[in-house]
Each structure stands twice: as C-alpha cells, then as structure tokens.
C-alpha cells in the first residue's frame, strides 16, 4: 500500500497549516491629512478649553464710501465677524494579546503586540478621514442628484459653484470610489480638449497614496470613507480653508510606562495586566474636524455603489 497524504494525516501530515505570511484584508488606507486641503488649526493644549473657537473677521468686507460733503463727519463702521467651533475629543482604540498568543507569533506580519501598535497609526489616520467625510455633509451647497451617476456636467457645476462663491483655489475633490468611476466613465464620452490627468508616480510621490489625478484643474483624491446611503454618496469639492482640524497632544505619563507620541495628536502606549498574562496597546488621538467656511466647499451627490 502506497504512503499517501491521507494515511499520514494527522500524525505526519496536517489537514491544513497556516501560510507563512498573514495578508491584510483589503481596505482603503489613503488619507489626505498631510495635504494643504485640511487646515491645521493647532493644538488645544493650554487653551483652557477642549473647543477651539475659530474667529473670522471681515476686515475687507466694508469698502470706503464716498462722503456726502468734503467735511462730513464719518461714523465708525462695525466689523463683520463670525466664528466656528471645533471640538477636540478623545478617540481611542485598544488591542489586547495574551502572552501565549504573543510568544507563538511567527513574526513578520503575524498578529503580535508590535503589529497591533503599527496598525494603530493607520487606524487613527483613517478615523480622521471618516470624520472629514462626515463633515462634508455640512456644506450648504450641493450639486448632482440622488441616484444619478456623477458626470462631467455635475463636476463642472461644482466648479462653477465654487467660482460663484469666489472661493480661492487650489481646489480638491474627495470622491467615493463609485463617484470616481462614474466620472471617468463620463469623461470617456466627452469631446474636445477636456483631459483627465491620471496620477503619475511623480505626482503620487508628492501628493500621497489616495491621489487619483486631476481634472479641470481640481486635484482628485479617492476615499472609501465618504458618507453613503442606499441611494447616494456624498463626495465633496472644496478650496483651501473650507475644512480644518484642531488637535491635542497627550501629556507624557509620569509613571515609567512605554509611551510614545507618534505625532502631536496621536499617542501610543503599552500596558500589562500581569496577573492575567495579557499585554495591551492603546492608541489615543485627540482631534476634531469641522467645516470652517461653507462657501469654500460644495457637496457632490451621486448614486450609491
């Protein structure tokens, strides 16, 4: 009788073994935090409040007016002002791993305390993207229609809206994957000199992973975190100054703990429950995102995936 795999199971052969590498579940990991399109308002550390009130003064809103006579006594004109509140809140994520799970880790990309710590940085940045996408739904202007593909017409309507508002460029669009696909499809049927400039390696090096190209002078980023309902997705186009974020820095602990401020708004620290033989890694991010000026942005409605 021949020696077969079946007869060797389960003493000398296994029904299945773990692959050497652990792959990552497909996920959009791009963010636009380091671009110029999200205004960094700074930190609330030492501010006396967790909420930053961003003031706007209309210094040039009022123009010099002609006087009735050359000796008319000119009265004072009140300054136009407004403000927006940006609340910085705590965002946290904790991963625990038992000692046995840690010591049997095969290294590399396998589950371990270090792998958890590494992934928390990406998780924190994607959390901010989620919040930016939610903030977009507060742009007062909206173009496109529920349940209708994003087209070049809608795209141009968004551009016109920003220009009508005298919004200053450069403009950026954060599009849901479906919206980007529909836009490219619509561009295919355009005639004339219109050109979609796809992202090249040089552009990606400068603008980062989520950059998809440029159309009609507007940078395009794709994000899977755009707000979606059953009928539509709510992408957005805006100019610099439309959306901002404020942050807070975690003060380092006084105890002798493993702690690192990864960035000025994200801290990662390790802790251990010795009696339970469990190690934990915790990320804390303090930030808040808000639409700063409505007129600088426009929401782009299009059909859902």
């Amino acid at each position, binding site marked *: 009788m021949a020696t077969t795999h079946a007869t060797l199971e389960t003493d000398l052969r296994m029904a299945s073994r773990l692959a050497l590498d652990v792959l990552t579940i497909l996920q959009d990991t791009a963010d636009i935090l380091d671009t110029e399109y999200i205004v960094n308002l700074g930190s609330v550390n030492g501010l006396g409040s*967790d*909420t930053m009130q961003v003031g706007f003064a209309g210094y040039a809103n009022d123009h010099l007016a002609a006087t009735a006579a050359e000796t008319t006594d000119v009265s004072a004109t009140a300054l136009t002002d*407004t403000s*927006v*509140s*940006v*609340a*910085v*809140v*705590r*965002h*946290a*994520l904790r991963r625990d791993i038992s000692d046995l799970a840690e010591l049997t880790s095969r290294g590399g990309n396998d589950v371990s305390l270090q792998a958890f710590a590494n992934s928390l940085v990406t998780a924190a940045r994607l959390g901010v993207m989620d*919040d930016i996408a*939610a*903030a977009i*739904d*507060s742009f*007062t*202007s*909206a*173009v496109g*229609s*529920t349940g209708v593909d994003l087209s070049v*017409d809608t795209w141009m*309507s968004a551009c*016109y809206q920003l220009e009508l508002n005298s919004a200053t460029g450069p403009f950026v669009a954060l599009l849901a994957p479906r919206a980007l696909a529909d836009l490219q499809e619509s561009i295919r049927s355009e*005639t004339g000199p219109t050109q979609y400039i796809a992202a090249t390696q040089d552009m990606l090096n400068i603008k980062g992973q989520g950059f998809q190209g440029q159309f009609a002078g507007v940078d395009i980023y794709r994000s899977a975190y755009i*707000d979606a*309902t*059953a*009928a539509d997705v*709510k992408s957005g186009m805006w100019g610099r100054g439309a959306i901002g974020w404020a942050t807070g820095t975690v003060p380092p602990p006084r105890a002798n703990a493993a702690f690192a401020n990864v960035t000025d708004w994200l801290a990662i620290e390790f802790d251990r429950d010795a009696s339970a033989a469990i190690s934990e890694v915790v990320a804390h991010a303090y*930030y*808040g*995102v*808000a*639409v700063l000026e*409505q007129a600088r942005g426009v*929401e782009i*409605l299009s059909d*859902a995936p």
Partner: protein
Amino acid sequence: MSYEVEDQSHLPTLPRKGGYPWLLKVHKTQGWECVEVAPGEWEWLPRLRRFHQRPGVNGHTARSGNLAKVNDQNAGFLILDDPRLVAKYRKVLRAQPGPAGSRAYWLAWDTPLVSGRSVARKRDAAQALEFRRWLVSSGTVELPDPVHLDSAIDTMRKQVARATRRAGNNPHLVGKLEQDQRTLDAARAAAKAPDGRWSETPPEPPKPRRRTTKKEAA
C-alpha cells in the same frame, strides 16, 4: 436625549461595527430639487442631509451637540431633531461591537441584506419619497421663495443648453436631452406654483373626425 424608538432585534446582526448616530437635516434654501413624484406630476422637494452626532465633527463634543447644531443652523440648515420626527425616519439596528458602539443607524425605509461580510441596502423608494413630500405638505419644512430655486433651475438650464450643442444626431444624447428639457420645464413651472407642485396638462384627445354628410357628399 435618546431617540431609540424601534426594536429591530428580529433582524440579523450586521457584520460590521456600529456607527455614530445621526439626524436628518435640510437646507432651507439651497437643498432643493424638482422630482417627478408621479408621471407628469412634479414637486420641489428638500434634499435630505445628515447631521452627524459624532464627537469631534463640526463642533460636536463628547458632552453635547449644541455647538454643532448652532454651526449648522447658522449655515441655514433645519435639523429634524424632534423625537416624533426622528421616529418617522430612523431606526436602530444591531451591529458587531466596535469603538463607536454596537448599534447601527439606518433610515427607516432601508433594509439591510447581509451577504457574508458585506451589507447591501434595499431601499423602499416610495416610502423615502413619501417622507420628503410629507415634510413639505405638513409644513415641517417650508418651500423657499422661488428666488432661491433659481440657482438650481439655472444649473439645469445650462446643462440643457450644453447638451443641446452636443446632442447632434446621437439618439442616446437626444433622448437624455429631451428628458432634461422636460425636467427643466417642470422645475420652472413648479417654482412658479404657490405650493411648488405642478402637473403637466395632458394632451387633448384627438377630436373625432366629422363624418361627411350626405348633402356635402352630393
């Protein structure tokens, strides 16, 4: 304040972590579109937007959403936060636990269809449309002055003008152009109507041919 009003425990647990709660809002002047609610019947209806009750977004703190509400109200939004209204449009589903909790917030007229790790949304479009119509007919949201609808009409007019230049003999574009032109005409007419509603006058039925009398025949 709690708005959880519906027990959805008979539905399957969603395979994703829960999300943050939200309310609906509409913009009083800029968020309107002309919709064909029935064949030949058009109405200006508000677009539904979301007021995210999400700490860290647009002024929401972990304690209160008042600043966020003020931010949006200053921008012209009407937030539909009356609990009786919320009960009409939102339901709470169970979801896998996550950092944002184990509840998922869904529109009342959407139903989850779970397939493996993905969730499709099945929409009862008639119910969704009915809610938007009800917002206007009940007076919850007032129809804006026609002046505010002008910019939406103007955008449509420009798209029709552009499509007219491009259409040529392309039957697909001509068909789309005719549809866009019809929508534009309806939007204009509905904007002039005091209640924002407009019905196309049905074409007159063809008159029966008069038979030739014997005298005329002779």
